[in-house]
């Protein structure tokens, strides 16, 4: 008996009128994967660094995220504490073991910090982004030992720290950086592109924030 796999491949080849062994076809596929050509990249994000960050903020705000900038990483804890106070939220915060977050002076605030993945009972979470994409105000977060994916979805209020130097123009630049970090053809287990807080328009097409993921998304851009 032929396996489902072999029969499906055989059917595709019969329909396309090919054998699967044609050298030019194989070369075309190898070449495309190897070279990964960029297609049409919008001019919108092709800006000098400072204007890129400005566009990133504007686009993120258009997607109902809130954005603030702080001069240095050392200023993040105070900014986060102030944000939570402003919104009348409890002074609790969960974060991953990320070294950049761990190095911040959380002890200088009154925040009660816990570390590790969320079990669904955390109101507030903070993550560090891998990058920000200016063309659409999109955050890019990658999973690893120090960055739990659950923190991106379970807490009601998600705060994301991103370095200004990691705010790039387009998605294509994200993949260059991922390949540089992971190697060609390799990906982190999860890459989350996040553009604004969770929402749904499923009831009478009325757009409402906070469907299953975070109700609020606050971005802290570190300028240094």
């Amino acid at each position: 008996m032929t396996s489902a796999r072999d029969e499906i491949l055989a059917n595709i080849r019969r329909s396309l009128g090919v054998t699967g062994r044609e050298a030019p076809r194989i070369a075309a596929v190898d070449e495309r994967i190897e070279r990964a050509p960029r297609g049409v990249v919008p001019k919108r994000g092709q800006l000098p660094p400072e204007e890129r960050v400005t566009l990133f903020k504007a686009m993120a705000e258009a997607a109902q995220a809130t954005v603030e900038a702080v001069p240095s990483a050392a200023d993040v804890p105070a900014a986060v504490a102030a944000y939570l106070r402003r919104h009348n939220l409890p002074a609790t915060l969960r974060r991953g073991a990320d070294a950049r977050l761990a190095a911040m002076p959380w002890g200088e605030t009154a925040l009660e910090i816990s570390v590790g993945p969320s079990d669904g009972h955390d109101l507030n979470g903070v993550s560090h982004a891998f990058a920000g994409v200016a063309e659409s105000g999109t955050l890019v977060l990658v999973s690893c030992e120090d960055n739990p994916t659950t923190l991106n979805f379970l807490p009601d209020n998600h705060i994301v720290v991103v370095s200004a130097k990691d705010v790039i123009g387009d998605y294509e630049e994200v993949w260059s950086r991922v390949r540089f970090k992971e190697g060609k053809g390799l990906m982190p287990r999860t890459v989350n592109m996040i553009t604004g807080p969770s929402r749904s328009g499923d009831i009478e097409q009325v757009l409402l924030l906070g469907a299953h993921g975070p109700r609020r998304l606050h971005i802290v851009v570190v300028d240094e």
Partner: protein
Amino acid sequence: MTLVATSPKFKENAARALADAQLQKALGNVRVGFIEKRLKAAERLPEFEALRDSARDIKNHTLAHLDLYLERYEKAVTAAGGHVHFARTAEEARDVIAAICTRLQAKTVTKGKSMIAEEIGLNAHLEALGMEPVETDLGEYIIQLRNEPPSHIIAPAVHLTKEQVAEDFRRVHTGLDKSRDLSEPVTLLGEARQVLRRRFLEADVGITGANFLVAETGTSIIVTNEGNGDLTQTLPKAHIVLASLEKLVPTLEDVSQILRVLARSATGQDMSVYTTFSTGPRRPGDPDGPGEYHVVLIDNGRSAMLGTSFQDMLRCIRCGACMNHCPVYHAVGGHAYGWVYPGPMGAVLTPTLIGVDKAGHLPNASTFCGRCESVCPVRIPLPKMMRHWREREFERHLTPATVRSGMAFWGYFARHPRLYGLATSLAMHGLALMGRAKGRFRWLPGASGWTKHRDFPAPQGATFQERWRKERRTRRAS
């Protein structure tokens, strides 16, 4: 939901839909929202049209090399610690999924929105095996409570009003305060969030669809606004991805091209809120994520579409723009189409999947206005393909006798141009004379299908061809 197609009864379905006041009220939301949002998003991006060409070319290239990209994809998934299962039919796909769930002794299975899961009738199968499938997309959750199929591929509950949803929540969420206020969408959303949060945390297996599969890296991609797909795939022991063969694209760069047209065409967003790239299961040291990662690659008729006049349909990225812009969909909604996929894309796809004998009405349910093709992000020639189906239907003698004899009657005149000219001239001048007083007819013999619903305007006198000849003579003379 039921998988029994009611597509053969399209005419009855449509008549019922037109008379359904509640449905007509709900459909009003489609007519206003989507069209303007898409237009604005497209206008904000100068490269939008070029990106549509790019998306079309990527899909065409992938389909022409689909066998090779599938092999590359399979290799990459396996290298990342995932498993690829091939399924020829809906039944094979259901069996593969059931085997994984059974082995993991699953009781609760959460689900992200997946049209292929609807296509293979997955929920009924899991229920029959004693498992509880829980839809987590808000729209899908609502229609699951009502035991209905989705009426739109990205807005499954678009046919319902908030009053209907409130009624269902009161019926099903019995543990809650009976006097609670459910009059606004925001309270309904809050209640669904609270109920489903518990289900996410207790689920044993999470099943999602895939918007794309990347051959380069073995990555599956889901695009959502709610975040339900992410909670579905991150929290349980295993993540099962369901995808039909044509979801494949070569590289991450290629996906980025198509993502730029997907959300803009669907909801008018620059990007959907969550675009998630998943590659394999939880890795050593990872603090969370699924322990197992499976992909079920489903053919179910796709490989047979390659190399035919319907191959272009395999470019479809399921954005819903064609139905959002379709006057027929606006009038009758999605359920009238009688199977999983409604609107213009459904009118083309459904006959290939369940047969033109059952779904022949669907490609006829078109005014051929061409709006679907004009907004399709991957430029699928939907009207042309609907015409292909009409031709096949005619060739296979599935067209009703009245239509066939009418066509034969018209065909005779069309082949005899002088006779055609004479007959139409007589008819038009005659009608113009008879209708001169009122300028319209309330009834015409043989045209009651028209005059039952609206007046027939009286012709001005000359036929189009007569006027054309006259205009040409005048222009030449001047």
